[in-house]
């Protein structure tokens, strides 16, 4: 299932390459803006100097020394602007995420109107949802402290340095993993919001938490597949950049092109991961709660109210896989709890009546 979802994510990403292009352009634009003071300062200082004549792979330490020591005023004044731009980027990335996820969800052709509409529709729910997930990020930061106390309890406050070192690596790894896991929850919560047409931010958050807990193997498996691809690509790109020991003039174009290719890859990667996560999440939702089956916006909230409060767990796929053969008219076992089933049945009845 992970492999199919992973492959499907990439193929859909290629189909929606206009979305990747959009992300690519936005990130280039913001990086260009954020780095503008630095680039301008460097150009002012070194534009007519020979200091730039160096191998391509590494920045000159001499130049960085000169630049930092002689550009204190510039850097200080640029810092405030940079912070504003970074903040603006964070909000823009949230807006863009809504636009892209909204477009991916329906597999509909990408139009400016649709992108703008989706971006605007999900902007505030996504911000609220992000604030909720930030709590998770915060908890992730507490974990090393707790692990440190645990370590003190086991080894005392003066353990051998090799123990402290490896335990430190373990603590960092756990923290990074938790951060990464929280990021997945962020993704699935947003996907839930999109699939339910932003029924309830809180409920989407809770459902994404439940999903990430119950389907942890799939969430981690799919996420790890993407992380592995990113790590390989990043390693290859870094190796390539470092291998450019040519003198300036012979490799600038190659370096530029490779930079563009890597950024484009990251944009496609992002769209592919969102699409794969969307497919994975959707495959475990009861068909009755999917907006395509309802099409009446105001019903969505009511349906969720009546169904998912009773849904304790996401257990088996209800959409993407074939249901198990079962006794006629009996719900598949063990799909969801009895309470949940009755909730869903009620919802289906109501839904049919409304149709």
């Amino acid at each position, binding site marked *: 299932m992970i492999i199919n979802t992973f492959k499907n994510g990439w193929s859909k990403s290629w189909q929606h390459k206009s979305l990747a292009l959009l992300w690519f352009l936005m990130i280039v634009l913001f990086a260009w803006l954020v780095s503008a003071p630095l*680039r301008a300062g460097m150009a002012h200082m070194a534009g007519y100097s*020979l*200091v*730039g004549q160096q191998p391509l792979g*590494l920045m000159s*330490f001499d*130049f960085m020394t000169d630049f930092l020591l002689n550009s204190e005023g510039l850097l200080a004044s640029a810092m405030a602007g940079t912070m504003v731009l970074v903040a603006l980027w964070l909000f823009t990335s949230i807006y863009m995420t809504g636009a892209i996820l909204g477009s991916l969800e329906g597999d509909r052709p990408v139009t400016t109107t649709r992108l703008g509409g989706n971006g605007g529709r999900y902007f505030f729910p996504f911000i609220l949802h992000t604030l909720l997930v930030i709590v998770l990020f915060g908890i992730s930061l507490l974990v090393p402290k707790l692990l440190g106390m645990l370590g003190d309890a086991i080894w005392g406050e003066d353990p*051998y*340095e090799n123990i*402290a070192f490896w335990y430190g690596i373990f603590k960092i790894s756990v923290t990074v993993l938790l951060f990464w896991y929280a990021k997945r929850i962020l993704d699935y919560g947003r996907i839930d919001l999109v699939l339910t047409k932003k029924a309830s931010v809180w409920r989407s958050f809770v459902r994404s938490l439940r999903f990430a807990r119950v389907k942890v193997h799939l969430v981690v498996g799919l996420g790890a597949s993407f992380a592995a691809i990113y790590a390989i690509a990043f390693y290859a790109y870094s190796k390539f950049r470092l291998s450019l020991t040519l003198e300036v003039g012979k490799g600038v174009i190659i370096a530029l092109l490779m930079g563009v290719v890597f950024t484009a890859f990251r944009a496609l990667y992002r769209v592919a991961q969102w699409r794969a996560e969307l497919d994975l999440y959707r495959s475990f939702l009861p068909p009755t709660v999917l907006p395509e089956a309802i099409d009446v916006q105001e019903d969505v909230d009511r349906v969720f109210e009546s169904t998912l409060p009773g849904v304790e767990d996401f257990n088996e796929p209800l959409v993407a896989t074939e249901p198990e053969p079962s006794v006629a008219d009996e719900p598949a076992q063990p799909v969801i709890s009895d309470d949940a089933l009755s909730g869903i049945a009620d919802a289906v009845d109501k839904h049919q009546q409304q149709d």
Partner: protein
Amino acid sequence: MIRTWVVLCFGALAWGQTQIFETPLSPRIANYKIDVTLDPEHRLLDAAEQLMWTNTTEHEATELQFHLYLNAFRNNRSTFMRESGGRHRGNEISSDGWGYTNVSSIKARLLAEEESGPYWNASQWPTLGESAWSLDHEFIWPDDDNQDDKTVIRVVLPEPVPPGGSVLVDIDFEACLPSPPFARTGAKEEYFFVGQWFPKIAVFTDEGVWNCHQFHLNSEFFADYGTYDVSMTVPEANILGATGLEVSVSETGNGMKTHVYHAEDVHDFAWTTSPDFVEFKGQAQDVEIRVLMQKDRAYQGERHLIAAQHSVTYFQDWYGDYPFPNLTVIDPRRGAAGSGGMEYPTLITAGSTYGLPESLRAVELVIIHEFGHNFWYHLLASNEFEESWLDEGINTYTEIQIMADLYGEKSDSIDFPFFKIGGLDMHRNRYASGPDLDPMLRDSWSYYSGSSYGINSYSKPGVVLTTLQNYLGRETMSKVMKTYVERHSFTHPTTEDFVAIANEVSGQDLTWFFDQAIHTNRVLDYTVSFIKSTAIDEGAGFDFDITRDDLMAGLKDDDEKEESDDEDKTYRTEVRLRRLGEFQFPVVLKVVFEDGEEVMETWDGKDLWKKFFYERKSKIASAEIDPDHLIPLDINYTNNSKTLELQREPMTHMNATWLDRFQIVLDLLAL
């Protein structure tokens, strides 16, 4: 020769005859015999010290002055603590880890001429006898009048020590080590590093005054040479390392062992003990190396040993003989970094952490630096209180040279695939961050700040001497350093001594250079301020015999000339150089024309500016001062060159690199 003598020496030691050198290498002025017992539970040292001190000056010594360094850590009112706020090199004194030295008794008597030796070790010394004086001591504050500072004492003698005379002094004292180790010394659990621990006599100068400064945050030490016979009683499970050579080890019967060490021609004595040491042994040329590693870092033992071997080999090959038979390298315990990175005669402390990558050459750098001090501090015992550049600065220079030769100039300190830094660049960077706060030479506690002390004692001298090496040539500089070692080993050389050697060996009067570099805060910064190439229109204007007809024809010619090829044009090129700093230094200028022609010029750098003019068929492409970067003292390399055209490709690359990095960061930040 030395190797043979070491063998003889060890043979002699086996017979209980403690003699290392055939003849004394130094004037043995301050000779010590100390019996000390460690109380590990209370980190206390209970000790009896005997000092035989000789007055080698032409003046009477009416009193003796001693350093009690550990009293710097007695409370937060000492001069050290007031200056440091309780912090030293990133370590903080613990609120329950203070240290002290308490002197409980001082007795002394003058020695008759026939009793004054020379002696090879303290077992041959005369006894104090019943007629010895019981002496009081008082604290003095020669530097800052801080009466809460208890780091210097004066002992007035009933009779002066005459020129050439000697005095025998018995001092009973108790010392408590700070915990964890702070400012080079202290205890941490089972680990003890014992430095600056005993009442140490100051230097009685040729002017007949005591040079005895209080213990300051930014200062190290100054002492006379002598012999040391030290017996240290520690728990029997402990391994011990110390200055000098181990003479004997004996059990005391109460779970303790006594280690006896003997050292000759040294001016300090430090020791360490811990049950957790793992020992590594090796050899470098004629020097035995012993590395005492912490158990949890034992896997780095080989790395430490190799670094020590490199140190000994390079220093002996490049700068002169290290006459001592052995070197001990100590790896401080975890949580005891305060005792790391320090030098003592024949014993140095390194500094590492578990998992330190090989590409981060902290171990190598520290060991090479600290061993270097066995030349620039130990063999050449300059006054670290007053001329810190002579030990730390020269040592930084030699460290830069050795590290660059071993690991490559641009990557000898940090050598990751994506990030490389060379030692010279690092020191140049540090120097350029505050180049004009102080001159290099001043009392070490009177710099503008701790950072300025660091810059002027370490980085600037390293950069200054590298600049001088590039100016004189490596071979001449090597001769300067070797001559300095040969001429001034086992003395107290001064800045003037070093300058005199440099002048003599180079055959030049380098006073102009040293005066600026050492005694002023002048900054060296030359720049190419202007370049321009202008086409010369040879037919422009009127000739002297101009007629109306000529005028008309001339104008016509001008029109034709405008259409002529660029190849026919001649360009007048102007290059202007400026001296932006006050430091004057001769510079080389490289001018490159668009047709590839290169012209080298020299400028003595004395005036505020200099212009160069050329007439060529080609425009100028670039002009660069110090094209080979031989003047690291120049605080700004970027303004050393100017090009006629914008450097599009380098700038494109630089822009693309930063754009690329910001993209990756923003991508990771995206919510």
